[in-house]
């Protein structure tokens, strides 16, 4: 054995340790920095820059709890979350049951459309609905007036119900994906057994299927409530005009007021309250998951659930499912229509000859939109890539590295789940406002890294858990360094999950308004914030054109991947 002529490669020994420490530092700064600032700011005296004084006071919390509007805001928030999640989960459960457990036609189509729909920004949907049903000249209202002679407005966007319904429709795709997974993993033998023992179809559904699903549905429900409590864009564009303040918009208005100076300490205190609510929800979520585990029915392999036979109801069921997509498509079509005219026009055949692409030319020529495009591409590509890189490493340390480092990294990267983005971004604002990063696209990237690392880590953790530990060990024994074993063995094996996670983060980063809006300056505009500013200006046709471009770009990226993925999964 010619082992003597080897150069010593000492640094290799510590590759893993050094990476771990660097990772800990990065994630620590990303996650703990803003949280510490938030807590500090919430006890700073009102109307000060929180990081420029040492004074501590609880007057902010006192102000919040003594303010007469506070109970309304909290009540609104909970009602809003419960209402939209209740309706959204009901619709999602129904469609998921149709696609997973029945012989309805067009199941693959509906599945792909659901995934694709997750890419459409709620902001855009909200604008579309405003165009459709605002009380003055909403297209549907005018239609009702002309056709049926309805006086006044049939619908109004600026009401609590509209806000709840529109939010409900927009949470359906996410809820659908989770519930479909739940249904797929349920052991159909439980149902078959009940059928054999003489239960009728609906008795079985009510007495067996639903109770079995309840823990899972409950935990999905809590997860969705958490998401809606944290949601910001729809409450902003619909809720503010309708005078329905919820916690997330309250935090926003305090830190980015239309006029006057921001009150960071009060908004931080609000943020802490919102954070507390989110933590409670999260605790409930984990408890629900744990009870769910007890019920969990693990299926054997190669074991296809027998679909329920719908018979004559097959096509009506399909129509009902498609109705959801028709409703979802309305606002996007309305935006498309609006983008074709220099001024807002009602949809009609007479107007059609006047349609032109002038708005698209105009917005694409605008320096603002061009800058926003460059920024958006930077933001989306860098956020998604860095999130997946950090997540893959964090996941490796928490799944394989073992020890304290792994656990600390795991907890730290999961913590942002409990922090509403609007709260997180305000903390980031306070933290970075005096640094050169503020006002650049980099601070937006930092924001998105912080917010999406939790998702990325969870994706990569579940991917790595499925990779047998010995596959990596075998590479080490073969003499490969840690980095080589990751690059040559682990990474190629989890590649599909990395790509999927990347896509998810990219789509969410492109559609997110919270971070770009709170941190917006003239330099770091991105498409989402441009749409919002144009709409606010108001340049409705311009906003519609940019929105349409955004949706189209997202769909062009997401749909082909979904088609490939669905083909791969039906084949495999």
């Amino acid at each position: 054995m010619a082992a003597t002529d080897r150069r010593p490669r000492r640094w290799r020994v510590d590759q893993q340790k050094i990476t771990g420490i660097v990772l800990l530092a990065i994630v620590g700064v990303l996650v703990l920095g803003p949280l510490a600032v938030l807590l500090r700011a919430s006890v700073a005296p009102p109307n000060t820059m929180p990081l420029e004084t040492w004074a501590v006071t609880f007057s902010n919390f006192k102000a919040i709890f003594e303010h007469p509007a506070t109970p309304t805001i909290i009540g609104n928030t909970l009602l809003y979350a419960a209402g939209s999640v209740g309706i959204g989960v009901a619709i999602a459960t129904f469609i998921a049951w149709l696609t997973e457990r029945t012989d309805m036609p067009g199941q693959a189509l509906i599945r792909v459309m659901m995934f694709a729909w997750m890419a459409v920004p709620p902001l855009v949907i909200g604008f579309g609905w405003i165009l459709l049903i605002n009380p003055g000249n909403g297209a549907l209202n005018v239609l009702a007036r002309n056709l049926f002679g309805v006086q006044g407005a049939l619908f109004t966007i600026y009401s609590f119900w509209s806000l709840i319904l529109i939010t409900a429709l927009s949470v359906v795709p996410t809820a659908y994906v989770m519930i479909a997974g739940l249904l797929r993993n349920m052991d159909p033998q439980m149902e078959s057994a009940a059928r054999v023992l003489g239960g009728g179809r609906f008795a079985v559904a009510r007495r067996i299927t639903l109770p079995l699903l309840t823990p899972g549905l409950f935990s999905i429900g809590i997860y969705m409530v958490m998401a809606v409590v944290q949601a910001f864009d729809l409450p902003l564009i619909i809720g503010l005009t309708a005078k329905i303040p919820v916690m997330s918009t309250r935090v926003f208005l305090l830190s980015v007021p239309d006029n006057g100076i921001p009150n960071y300490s009060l908004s931080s205190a609000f943020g802490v309250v919102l954070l507390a609510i989110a933590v409670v929800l999260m605790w409930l979520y984990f408890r629900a998951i744990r009870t769910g585990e007890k019920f969990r029915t693990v299926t054997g392999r190669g074991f296809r659930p027998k679909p329920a036979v719908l018979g004559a109801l097959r096509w009506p069921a399909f129509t009902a499912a498609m109705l959801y997509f028709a409703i979802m498509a309305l606002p996007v079509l309305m935006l498309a229509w609006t983008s074709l005219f220099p001024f807002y026009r009602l949809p009609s055949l007479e107007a059609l000859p006047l349609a032109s692409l002038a708005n698209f030319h105009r917005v694409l020529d605008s320096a603002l939109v061009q800058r926003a495009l460059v920024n958006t591409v930077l933001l989306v590509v860098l956020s998604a890539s860095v999130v997946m890189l950090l997540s893959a490493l964090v996941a490796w340390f928490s799944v394989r590295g073992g020890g304290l480092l792994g656990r600390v990294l795991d907890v730290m990267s999961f913590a942002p789940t409990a922090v509403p983005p609007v709260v997180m971004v305000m903390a980031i604002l306070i933290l970075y406002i005096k640094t050169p990063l503020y006002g650049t696209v980099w601070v937006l990237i930092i924001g998105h890294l912080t917010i999406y690392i939790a998702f990325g880590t969870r994706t990569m953790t579940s991917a790595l858990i499925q990779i047998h530990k010995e596959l990596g060990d075998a590479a080490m024994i073969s003499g490969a360094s840690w980095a080589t074993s990751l690059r040559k063995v682990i990474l190629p094996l989890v590649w599909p999950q990395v790509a999927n996670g990347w896509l998810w983060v990219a789509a969410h980063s492109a559609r997110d308004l919270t971070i770009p809006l709170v941190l917006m300056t003239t330099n770091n505009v991105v498409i989402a914030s441009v749409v919002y500013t144009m709409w606010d200006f108001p340049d409705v046709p311009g906003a519609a054109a940019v929105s349409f471009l955004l949706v189209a770009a997202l769909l062009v990226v997401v749909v082909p991947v979904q088609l490939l993925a669905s083909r791969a999964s039906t084949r495999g």
Partner: protein
Amino acid sequence: MLAVRDLTKTFPARHDNGAVRALRGVSFDIADGDFFALLGPSGCGKTTMLQSIAGLETPDSGEIAMGDTVVYASAGGINIPANRRQLGMVFQSYAIWPHMTVFDNVAFPLAHGERKTGKAEIAERVKRALDLVKLGAFADRLAPHLSGGQQQRVALARALVHEPRLLLLDEPLSNLDAKLRDTMRIELRQLVKSLGITTLFVTHDQVEAMGMSDKLALMRDGVIVQQGTPQDIYLRPESAFAADFMGRSNLVAGRVNGNGAMVDVETPIGTIRCPAAATDLNDGIVVIRPQAVRLHGPGIGGQNCYAGTVEQVSFLGDVVEGEVRVGAGLLKIVVDPYRQVAPGQTVTVELPPERCVLVPPDSGSLP
């Protein structure tokens, strides 16, 4: 070649169970070129031992040396990482990388290992390794398209291709079906023996351990209870556990009378005369293999001869197993299939003293 000294490893308590002392001071040596088996029941610490030697797990204290290099020593703070210990290992799951061809799997230690090798030499050495395990024709196959036995050979080729100084095998046969296991047992041993590679082999199957190894160590609850050649441990167990684990045996408890080379043990069967144990005992267990029992017709007298009644017989083809009631005890026996025995038959059972082994009473498992 391999020297392990006082190795300990404790897994810290997790939320739902207490700390596990997986290794409690294990020492053993493997001579150059030996095929050494580490045998023990599930959970006794075999995998932990193997992983510590491989460098995939860090022990708490002790020392591991390979040849004249110390790869781990808690005292000196030495811990050479797994990728620089120059080992080959076949994992229990085989750990064949599913995204690579057979060739790429086997080439990996040469292409990405410590010592980089040229393309031409890699091709040459991989071919040799694959020929060795009779998989030359499969080089371009993707790994998942192989049968279990073929995967095991790929794993073996990959473990051998870079000429490791020590080969580690973690239950390499347990995923194969019984027939294949029998042939692979012999093939595997012949292969590594012909290459002269020192091998450490972990298994919970005593037939496998005895059939393949030059030397073996029997583990229980994180300690080695006995080591030696297979015959040694089978014929001269030092504990009831060792006797029981190595194969079917009659364990007859009793009081020990007398001292000297031969002692008498009062048992429910009668007084058994047998060689004394290494230490003086008041109580002990006499270990008698079923094969050690001689069966005669009724009414025959002599040393260690007892009258008995056949209680049950099962005809297994290869052998006939039976149980004979003797006094207040029951003895398992094995007889050849051509011999007529039937339940109810009265017989004389002879237990030749030199085939009886006296061991201390079982202390139970360690705390």
